[in-house]
């Protein structure tokens, strides 16, 4: 469906993309995660024909971006990071304009505008000028404008930035509905919970390269990351610690607390607790840290701030 091969892009002397390659199947939602300046928006911009790559190929449904740009563009919808709407026009007029660029016949376009605007919960305000809308409403119109020509592939570049939880939830529901309808989606975000909820596969990008990609489960097992259970005890002595550590070597003691590390804490937790009871330890508090996308992300990209 989507084939990206050896994508490279330089801005002056900065190499923004260093050979990005990936394939996406039809109906898949592919998430792109990465710190600021990692290259996510550059990838989306090249795939949307906003930027020209220095090297590499992109094709969708067999249409090559360089060789057949107009046919390629008919297959894509782009939800840009900026809210690209004409503030002086109504939502309806904005959608009429963006839809007409894709040569959707007028009666069909009007029908689709009504359906899309209804799906995004804006039917009551469709004739109001966009400048009177809240940020969340504008974001929803911005999404609607990319859907009117029924694209096979939708690029969504941080579509939930700066909006209220209600609007964000509605956008999630719309994305899920589009996935159900078989649309292929490429979704970039900074929010891990969004990627976990919406994406079938995730690619973590840093410094212009894809560091790792796969399903969430594949990402969890791809690294050497372990889950942690931290237990605080009322009566931890050296002798008791030695007895525990003999059976459970992968641990770390901090005063009256022991951190136990495991690849699968869910199955190992009961064994740890049984052993603690066996040596006569009184448990005060248990804290479990499971591996989630955020821990994987931070583990792979580091904690260094990216302000470029």
């Amino acid at each position, binding site marked *: 469906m989507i084939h990206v091969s050896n994508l490279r892009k330089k*801005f002056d002397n900065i190499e923004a993309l260093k050979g990005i390659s990936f394939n996406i199947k039809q109906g898949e939602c592919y998430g792109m995660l990465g710190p600021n300046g990692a290259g996510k928006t550059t990838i989306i*911009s090249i795939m949307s024909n906003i930027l020209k790559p220095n090297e590499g190929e992109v094709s969708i449904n067999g249409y090559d971006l360089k060789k057949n740009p107009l046919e390629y*563009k008919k297959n894509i919808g782009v939800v840009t990071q900026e*809210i*690209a709407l004409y503030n002086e*026009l109504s939502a309806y*007029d904005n959608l009429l304009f963006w839809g007409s*660029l894709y040569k959707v016949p007028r009666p069909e376009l009007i029908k689709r505008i009504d359906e899309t605007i209804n799906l995004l919960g804006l039917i009551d305000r469709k004739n109001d000028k966009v400048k009177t809308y809240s940020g969340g409403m504008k974001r929803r119109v911005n999404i609607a*404008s990319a859907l009117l020509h029924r694209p096979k592939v939708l690029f969504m570049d941080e579509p939930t930035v700066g909006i209220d939880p209600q609007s964000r939830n509605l956008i999630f529901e719309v994305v899920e509905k589009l996935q159900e309808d078989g649309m292929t989606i490429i979704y970039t975000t900074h929010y891990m919970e969004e990627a976990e909820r919406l994406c079938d596969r995730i690619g973590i990008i840093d410094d212009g390269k894809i560091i790792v990609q796969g399903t969430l489960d594949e990402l969890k097992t791809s690294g050497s990351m372990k889950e942690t259970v931290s237990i605080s005890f009322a009566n931890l002595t050296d002798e008791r610690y030695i007895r525990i550590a003999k059976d459970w070597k992968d641990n770390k003691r901090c005063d009256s607390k022991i951190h136990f590390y495991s690849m699968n804490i869910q199955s190992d937790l009961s064994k740890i607790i049984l052993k603690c009871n066996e040596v006569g330890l009184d448990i005060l508090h248990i804290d479990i840290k499971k591996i989630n996308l955020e821990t994987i992300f931070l583990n792979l990209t580091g904690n260094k701030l990216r302000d470029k």
Partner: protein
Amino acid sequence: MIELVKKDLKLFFVNKQDMLLTFALPIIFITLFNFVFGNMGNSGENDVGGLVHVVAGMSVMMLLFSVAGIGGSLIDEKQEGMLKKLLCAPIPPNNILYGKMVYAIIISIAQLIIMFVYAWLAFGLDIMHHLPSLALMILATAYACSGFGIVLASFAKTRQQVQGFSTIIVMVMSAVGGSMIPIFVMPELMQKIAVFTVNYWGIQGFYDIFMKSLPLTDITFLFKVFVLIGIGTLLNLIALLMFKKNILKIV
């Protein structure tokens, strides 16, 4: 491209400030200037030289300001992300520019028509006996000015820069080209420099129509029309080159 022009026209009609600046302000200027300078240099009761100078001079000057605003709207679209989204749509990128040019020509024609109709209704300028020549001169002047705003936008990074550049350039061109003071009262050197301005050729063309009553086929009149078309073509070609080089350079 038609869709782009329709969108710009829709935006123009919903924006009261644009309407006011394009149509009402020139009418106010023409009215005021005509009261002050309308009879200047007239030799008799039927001499309309002063009126023609005010209408033609003000119209071309205000037209240049209007098209500069249209160039500014292209910068707005770039800054607000609309240009990015347009590049994602299945249209050739140059159509974005052609759309702006066609829109600029339509607004310019409308502005000039309204100015001359107003001069006819308010001050009795006889446009009815010169309709074919007037129509041709309006088309040529509108075309000559249409690329001006886009050329300005190609060199600017912000709308404020477009406004700043346009104010300086339009005021200088208008002063030198005869929009403010008639060319014949200027020193000889200034008269020679004036031929490099669009104002000069537009105003001289309107003089030919109303003061010399030259027919549509007169070679002197047609020469001015060709010069204006030449200026328009040159500006639009520069606009096309600069659009690709500067405006489409998104990041």
